[in-house]
């Protein structure tokens, strides 16, 4: 599943960096009817978590009211060089992960 993550590669100590993530996903609400008249089952990403050096920075709980291909923007205070992990879980419990390295100097 395609994902776009916008995060700077380097940051100064204490700098607050902006992070943006766009995940390709239909975010099917479960309220729409398909061409056969039956409800299209709900298929959404429920949580998106960002971890910095293993510690949680940001977590989003998404509901059907979030637009298709969910976009999230948030911030992170850079401290030391480390891994930034992005973990998202959909309604059936399938988990996807992406990793970026933030170099602090």
């Amino acid at each position, binding site marked *: 599943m395609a994902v776009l993550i916008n995060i700077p590669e380097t940051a100064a100590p204490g700098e*607050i960096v902006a992070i943006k993530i766009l995940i390709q996903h239909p975010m099917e*609400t479960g*309220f*729409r*009817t398909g061409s056969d008249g039956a409800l299209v089952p709900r298929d959404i990403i429920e949580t998106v978590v960002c971890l*910095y050096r293993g*510690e*949680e*920075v*940001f*977590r*989003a*709980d*998404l*509901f*059907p*009211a*979030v*637009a*298709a291909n*969910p*976009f*999230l*923007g*948030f*911030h*992170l*205070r850079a401290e030391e060089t480390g891994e930034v992990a992005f973990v998202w879980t959909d309604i059936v419990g399938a988990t996807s992960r992406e990793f970026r390295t933030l170099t602090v100097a």
Partner: protein
Amino acid sequence: MTLSRRAAVTGLLSLPWILRMTPARATPETMQGALDAFTGGASVREGRVTLKIPLLVENGNSVPLSVSVESPMTPEDHVEEIAIFNELNPLPDTARFHLTPRAGLAAVETRIRLNGSQTVHAVARMNDGSHWSTTTNVIVTAPACREV
């Protein structure tokens, strides 16, 4: 007699509207219920929260929204959670953002669906347990959820 005929005509004309209103959807009352569930019945004060959302939206399927809260985001004083509520979608809950002091700045953004013109609410819970909120009226010309 003319009055009763007028009443009959308006009644007939309003019938499609009544039929259109039947699908289950959130109301300002159910939204208040969801908001109370979030706050646990605590009092909510106006202020500290800024909600940026276009006042006039052409396409309700993707409405950009950003929320920021005045907070130093230190371990002693930070925003714990921000919740977005809507009044007219099938569910009043829209999105929730859990923040920690590592975020450094209490500012988040996303894109949401809006099923019609309504008031969008943003509520922030601080680590001291206080709640702050703001609201914005949005006019939506092409609502989400209608087209199939």
